[in-house]
């Protein structure tokens, strides 16, 4: 019994280390890659708002790809994702596939906005068309995902929306008040979009954590 507990603990520690190393590597190489592309001028002369949007976008794409790994290869996915075993991934394959594609779509959508003209290489009509198309795909996927969710996942989704709303009130509203009164700089419209994406990600972690879904397995 003691031996089994020790083995389980070692397995957990190995998994945490693997997750941290993998997350660190993905984050590091994504950041280095973006900085390199910006430096060589391939992405145009991006301003700070566009660069921040690009980093958040890549985070979405990277997380979506990690989820996708769990869908395509549950055995490997179980080693890097926070699930009990590959059975969990197989059981929720459909909903995870929808989540993975949705996250990549959200990331690509934000990339298109971040790289939009006049500073970026993507023309404004193309960026707008990509955003509208991405939004339609996301709504369609969300409706399909809702049908597959059990009551816990629906509760987590509701919690996430609720938390995101209050975070936006706090961060966006707070910043707006400070900027209005002259204590902070005005943010750009792209910053507003980026904050929405970032807040949704943070809210999702909080909502999952509150239901014990982030506990290391």
């Amino acid at each position: 019994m003691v031996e089994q507990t020790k083995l389980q603990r070692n397995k957990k520690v190995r998994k945490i280390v693997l997750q941290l190393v993998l997350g660190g590597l993905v984050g590091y190489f994504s950041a280095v890659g973006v900085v390199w592309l910006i430096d060589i001028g391939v992405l145009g002369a991006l301003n700070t708002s566009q660069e921040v949007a690009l980093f958040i976008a890549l985070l979405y794409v990277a997380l979506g790809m990690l989820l996708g790994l769990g869908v395509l290869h549950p055995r490997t996915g179980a080693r890097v994702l926070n699930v009990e075993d590959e059975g969990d991934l197989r059981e929720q394959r459909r909903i995870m596939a929808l989540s993975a594609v949705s996250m990549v779509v959200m990331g690509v959508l934000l990339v298109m906005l971040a790289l939009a003209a006049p500073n970026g290489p993507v023309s404004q009509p193309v960026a707008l068309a990509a955003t509208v198309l991405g939004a339609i795909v996301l709504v369609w996927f969300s409706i399909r995902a809702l049908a597959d969710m059990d009551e816990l996942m629906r509760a987590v989704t509701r919690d996430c929306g609720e938390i995101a709303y209050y975070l936006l009130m706090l961060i966006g509203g707070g910043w707006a008040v400070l900027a209005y009164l002259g204590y902070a700089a005005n943010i750009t419209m792209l910053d507003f979009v980026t904050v929405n994406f970032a807040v949704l990600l943070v809210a999702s972690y909080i909502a999952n954590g509150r239901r014990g879904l982030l506990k290391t397995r």
Partner: protein
Amino acid sequence: MRNNLKEYREAAGWSQGELARRLGVSRQTINAVETDKYDPSLPLALRMAKLFGVAVPNLFIDQWEPEAE
């Protein structure tokens, strides 16, 4: 809300996955209920009670008592 779901499940010899399958929910839902991270809906609580052949108050423990008249 505190509950005895784990005790009843283990007495039945079922894993979390097996109970989840019988109730038509995910294994995470069973885990979240057992660890008091999630209170199930009334329909799910009723299904759990029906599955174990007990009343809902046997599964879910509420300390509240009505005030004496």
